[in-house]
């Protein structure tokens, strides 16, 4: 039942590469991953940026690794996600514009 709902919604069907839907799916995936990293408390480990260990118990290597994951997901979230959303918007608007132009002669 749940599977059917998601299939109907069509959000997780594979989209054509670089189509508007593909860009939205990528934006969504990044947002979910960032949210998970944030909720897992990885933000605390970013202190490695100034040379301070994120957690004495975790040690330098693990702290650095977790910080790197968080920072990359954060940058993707604040830089890449808006770009993907804007690009999807442009593609959708462009398709509507083209469709409108294609149908114009028939309307006349």
């Amino acid at each position, binding site marked *: 039942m749940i599977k059917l709902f998601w299939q109907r919604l069509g959000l997780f069907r594979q989209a054509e590469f670089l189509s508007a839907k593909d860009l939205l799916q990528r934006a969504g995936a990044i947002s979910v991953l960032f949210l998970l990293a944030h909720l897992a408390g990885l933000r605390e480990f970013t202190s490695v940026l100034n040379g301070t*260990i994120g957690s*004495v118990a975790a040690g330098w290597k693990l702290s650095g690794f977790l910080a790197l994951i968080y920072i990359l997901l954060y940058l993707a979230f604040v830089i890449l996600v808006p770009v993907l959303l804007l690009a999807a918007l442009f593609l959708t608007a462009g398709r509507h514009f083209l469709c409108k132009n294609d149908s114009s002669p028939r309307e006349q």
Partner: protein
Amino acid sequence: MKSRTARILAGLAALVIAAVIWLPCLHLVFTRSLSDFRQNQGLSPKARQLAARHLQLWTDPARREQELKKMRASNAEWDFMGRSYLVWSLANMALRDPASKPLYLRTMDQIIDETLRLEKQEGMYFFLMSYAKERHYLVQPAHSLFLDGEIALMLASRRVVEEKPEYKSLLTERVNAIVERFQKSPRMLLESYPDECWMFDHCVALDAIKMADYLDGSDHSALIRAWLAMAKQKLVHRDSGLLVSSFTTDGTPLAGPEGSSIWMVAHSLQLLDEDFARDQYQRARKELGEITLGFGYAHEWLESWKGEANIDSGPIIPGFEISAGSSGMAFIGASTFDDGKFLTSLAATLDFAGFPSRTRGRLKYCASNQVGDAALLYAATLGPLWQKVKTGGKP
């Protein structure tokens, strides 16, 4: 095939256009008005939130212990400097917000007393990096100007806000000892580490001496003038006109001008020689400060004197050469010299890449640490303390 290629090209074009639109706008999401960080009177929202977190650390020993442990794993100096910056901030806050003065004074006293106790109990090496023990100080008995200067400035700052008789003799002893060593030193250069002297520490120590003069009516103006004349003549990097950051006791530079040092040096100099201080700030701003796409940051090293990333600079981000240490300290310089444009852009970067974390009105920056946040608090509150001493109003 043709339609697939067209779709991919259209997708790529849309991505490029979107990036060209979004990247220059990104800073707008993080840019706040200057008054959010610093206000001419009273306390800014950021100052209140940062202070609330620091005050909590000093009422919660377990939490403080955890923070200090993390910092001491990298650098014992940070434990000490976090105390200094917090005391200096609280002194300014007490002058800005008289209603909260009792709380601020109580916290200042707690920090000063604990720092003096640790210095006495554990010795001066407790707050120094381990390499201090690897060689002998040239001048015996060993003293670190780093510790003496900052402790003296903590004591003086507290007394400027409100006199505390127990601290009068402690300040006098410490200042007299520094002055005596200045007078005995052939070049007026004192060690912070064995045969390693720091501009930062000299300027802070001279500020403490100046404040002791203000508080107790002594007069070391000739010493201060002589030291400044010597520094202008012997410790300035010729290409940039900036003061070098570290040198040996015979005045040989160890490192050129450094971002993590020069911004605080310019701030400290403001109490000693306003024109020279402003000149140093403007040169540092030109050589080390940057604003890219609305985000402010600072380099650690000059083009003409490159160095490695070190414990003070923090990791340097390649490409833009962004130093966390220098960028953090640049807040102090920009705030001191009312450089609103640079300060606003630095604050935008801080909210973008400093990973702020707010809990019940308390703010910390996860990419920073306790000393970094204390230095930011100082940048958000500085002014009244220097002003009171400079204008010569009665202590």
